């Protein structure tokens, strides 16, 4: 721990205000997603806890606000804050899980393409190029409408969209690494291809991978929110932040702005925090940008 505190990484971190702000935001949201359900009074998905009488209460600081519902309630009398806390867990889970899945697949394909080259490289990278020529939103939308909705489907769609970034990043770094003599040294030592990839290539392409992964979580949360907003994302029984915005949007023009504005703001700050921290990692871990 003391070694970390005196490290160059931490030194730069302390002097980077956006990074501190971003990571503070992230920390808040993480704590909230973990411990939030213990703090909010209501489980918004337990119908027995809902009071229809309390529907469309405005936030507490407005006239007619109810101190039990800090950010107001929606049409079913659900506490908006409680919905956000539960919705954030779903959004964060989808973002992280999609990141892991696409990282796993994309990294593997990128390593294969970069290390073996030749036909495998051509095929994998051409598929990636073709896919990149479409907006990722469009592909996800298409997949969701074709194969149905649900959290598992969202994960598949996000993975299908996200692996390209990993594959390209990893392939590029791999091409750089395998030129170096330590790979040849490993070959002379008698290591096979798989062992070389596992012991030498992978550890050396890990840094850009970490940077990409951070940014990707934010991107995935946004795409998922958009999909849910368009009605092809998560089911109503497991509402993510995007679905909350959509639900609120239906009544937005009746002057009931809080049901969509607060989840929307929450998404914004969450992704903002992720990106701030991701940018810091990118600058810090990429020696070329120093």
């Amino acid at each position: 721990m003391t070694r970390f505190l005196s490290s160059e990484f931490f030194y730069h971190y302390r002097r980077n205000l956006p990074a501190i702000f971003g990571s503070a935001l992230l920390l808040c949201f993480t704590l909230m997603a973990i411990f939030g359900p213990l703090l909010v009074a209501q489980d918004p998905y337990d119908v027995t806890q809902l009071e229809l009488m309390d529907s469309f209460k405005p936030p507490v600081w407005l006239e007619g606000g109810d101190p039990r519902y800090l950010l107001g309630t929606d049409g079913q009398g659900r506490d908006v804050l409680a919905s956000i806390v539960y919705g954030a867990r779903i959004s964060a889970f989808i973002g992280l899980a999609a990141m892991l899945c696409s990282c796993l697949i994309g990294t593997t394909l990128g390593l294969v393409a970069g290390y073996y080259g030749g036909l495998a490289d051509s095929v994998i990278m051409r598929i990636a190029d073709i896919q990149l020529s479409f907006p990722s939103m469009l592909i996800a939308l298409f997949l969701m409408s074709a194969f149905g909705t649900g959290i598992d489907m969202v994960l598949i769609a996000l993975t299908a969209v996200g692996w390209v970034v990993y594959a390209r990043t990893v392939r590029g770094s791999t091409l750089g690494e395998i030129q170096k003599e330590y790979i040849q040294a490993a070959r002379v030592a008698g290591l096979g291809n798989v062992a070389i990839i596992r012991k030498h290539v992978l550890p050396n392409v890990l840094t850009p991978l970490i940077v990409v992964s951070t940014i990707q979580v934010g991107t995935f949360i946004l795409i998922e929110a958009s999909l849910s907003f368009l009605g092809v994302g998560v089911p109503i029984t497991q509402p993510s932040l995007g679905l909350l915005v959509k639900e609120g949007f239906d009544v937005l023009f009746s002057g009931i702005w809080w049901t969509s504005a607060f989840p929307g703001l929450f998404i914004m700050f969450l992704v903002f925090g992720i990106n701030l921290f991701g940018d810091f990692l990118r600058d810090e871990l990429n020696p070329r940008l120093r």
Partner: protein
Amino acid sequence: MTPPVLEVKDLVKAFPVGGFLDRLQVGKGSLLAPQRQLRAVNGVSLTIAPGEVFALVGESGCGKSTVAKTIARIYEPTSGEIRIDGEDVSRLPFRAMLPVRRKLQMIFQDPYASLDPRQRVRDIVMEPRLAQGGRLSRRELQDEAVALLAKVGLNAEQANRYPHQFSGGQRQRIGIARALSVRPTLIIADEPVSALDVSIQAQILNLMKDLRDEFRLSYLFVSHDLSVAHHIADRIGVMYLGFMVETASRDQLFREPKHPYTRVLLSAAPTLDKSNPGTKIEIRGEVPSALRLPSGCCFRTRCPLAFDRCAVERPALKPQADGSAVACHLHDRTDTERMIP
């Protein structure tokens, strides 16, 4: 007589050049994609006796590193034989090479690129040893690594560090320790000191000499630096454009170079001896492209002594009376009347 540690016969290495689209041409009314080849090594033969240091010299791009890396099977040989302790290994599949790698290890040129920056020194030096299979406990691994590092003048505490914490010379010592980990009989050293400061070069060369005596090693030592080759080699082979043009014992080569290219090369080496500045032989032109080798002798396009036969017939490396071997028609015994004055 003991069999040679390494015997290379007619080693050829050609690299295909360009992707399919780069090669497309229109010729005779149809699309063609001729296979172009970069002929890096063109029939090199050499032998190394136990305990001998054979230096391969030549200018950049003459294929000397390719010879080294092909023998180490980093590159697959296009044709030719590579015999290690009498066994032809040039066609062995990757797995079957593993026992051979116990006899043959390599030291690399760039001490900054040849060590994995994410590995501890302990794991780096033990890598060839561990690749041979067999389990080692943490304790054994540490002890063996420390013993190896001691052989190259590094201490036990340094075993747990990472490569970036070392200087170039120290890194090269780590590279040497790695090569020693399987107790090889032959070490291929690809320009092991060319990336180092001159003051460090001597240390590393002397270390390599000491290790040769201690472990009875043979070296195939690749260098573009004649003074380095002179310092360490017993015998020297001179390469030009992928051909071996002359092999001779060190003293013979420096005293009486036979091939015109060797003479040019030696005369181009800077000397501090003011009393004997040597005669500079100047030659014109560039090294021909390895994509289009000249007919006949590889050096004829620049050789001041070239004559008709040189363009027609490729000279073979022929043994001379004094034990050296030269690939030059001027030294062909059937052509003695044309001996260089």
